């Protein structure tokens, strides 16, 4: 079965640089979520999109932005990177059936900011 695809899997950036993370949801899933997981921490919700519109916003810094495209893939754009942005970034997708549904997680993108 197809899973959530994230690219790149690993990314190394310098402070103050920008980074773009991509997420390709499971086919026919129209809702995408982004999470940040620091070392030894639980995943923290950043932002979600449903049918290409932002549906909910969590603890996403103003330096970050995201969008969902017409093919339902999503990109998380991170600017002015800080050392504290080093983390594992998960994308998850779910189908919207009118009820709260299971989120299926991608393998994550490991971001290291030097």
């Amino acid at each position, binding site marked *: 079965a197809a899973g959530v695809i994230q690219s790149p899997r690993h990314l190394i950036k310098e402070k103050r640089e920008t980074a773009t993370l991509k997420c390709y949801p499971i086919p026919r899933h129209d809702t995408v979520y982004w999470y940040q997981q620091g070392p030894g*921490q639980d995943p*923290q*919700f950043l932002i*979600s999109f449903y049918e290409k519109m932002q549906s*909910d916003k969590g603890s996403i810094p103003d330096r970050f932005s995201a969008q969902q495209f017409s093919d339902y893939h999503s990109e998380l754009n991170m600017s002015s990177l800080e050392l504290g942005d080093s983390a594992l970034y*998960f994308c*998850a997708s779910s189908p919207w059936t009118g009820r*709260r*549904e299971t989120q299926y*997680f991608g393998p994550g993108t490991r971001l290291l900011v030097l």
Partner: protein
Amino acid sequence: AQTVTQSQPEMSVQEAETVTLSCTYDTSESDYYLFWYKQPPSRQMILVIRQEAYKQQNATENRFSVNFQKAAKSFSLKISDSQLGDAAMYFCAVNYGQNFVFGPGTRLSVLP
């Protein structure tokens, strides 16, 4: 604020034995889903089991089962016949609206 609590930061179990991981949550909603996710050293988040709050019957998936007590807002995970591959971080999560709230996790070690 919605909260999810896992009171056991670490647990250990002997191979082939049974272990129960605890989770409590706080919500004013009546319709929600509860989940247990497993995160092995690879850090992939793997769905273990899910429970719909409006269903009274406890969910079961092979060796994994839950004890869902809605009134007590408790959602524990029982792992039977523990295997070495069960060693991982286990996160309890509750789906409020469009996003999940995760608990802090329980690190499970399986002893041979």
